[in-house]
């Protein structure tokens, strides 16, 4: 039987992979995908905690699942807005390469 630690390690690994994607890839779309991976890693640990800590009534902690539901909703909104921003950015700069987007620097 898998233990809580199994799930948490998977979640941590998933988060680290997402972070690595954000840190190393220079295509802004891939960076965005890395962010999605990180969000889902958090979801996984939330669901795992809810399953491994049932309430007094013997049911899993559904509040955590509601939180995951909210995260998914917000993430969907975030993706829509983020991608719209990327499109607008691409229209202005003709690039999705983050190293070419450095006008904010000193």
């Amino acid at each position: 039987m898998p233990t809580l630690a199994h799930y948490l390690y998977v979640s941590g690994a998933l988060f680290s992979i997402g972070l690595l994607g954000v840190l190393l890839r220079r295509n802004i779309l891939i960076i965005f995908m890395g962010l999605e991976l990180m969000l889902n890693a958090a979801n996984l640990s939330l669901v795992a905690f809810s399953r491994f800590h049932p309430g007094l009534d013997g049911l899993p902690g559904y509040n955590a699942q509601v939180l995951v539901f909210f995260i998914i909703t917000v993430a969907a909104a975030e993706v829509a807005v983020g991608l719209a921003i990327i499109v607008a950015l691409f229209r202005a700069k003709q690039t999705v390469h983050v190293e070419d987007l450095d006008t904010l620097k000193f």
Partner: protein
Amino acid sequence: MSLALFWIFAILTLLFAVGVVVFRSPVSSAMSLVMSFVGLAALFVTLDAFFIAVVQVLVYAGAVMVLFLFIIMLLDLRTEERRPVKLAAWAGGGIVLAGFLVAIARVISSLPGATNTKPEILPGLNDVAQVGVALFRNFNLPFQIIGVLLLVATIGVVVLSRRELK
């Protein structure tokens, strides 16, 4: 049996996640992201979170990924030309990754009850109904606010993607 299923789906999820980062073509990255999410949904099923698993597949693997693919096609992104790898970026990434892994390992190893197996829960639960009850009874206001957030996001996207009228 359950442990075997866990390992299959965990490895599937992580492998495709690595694929997202490694593939050079954005379309390949997106497709492996879909697979990673499907694997994650399967992990949710092993945790008896059927509703979340279904939502995961519908929203992430479905809607969100379609959006990603649309944008990739809209921007007409080809496989990236190889740019010289920056040593600083790799070193930085390595440091942060190592730091994170150490932190996660330390947190999990010091977590009480981390090695517990899944406790028994009532069999034959109606998962969706339970989430629905929690959602509408305990989190009604946040639920309404999330609705407004989606509306705002919709309007925001429309405004953002409108071409400049001149």
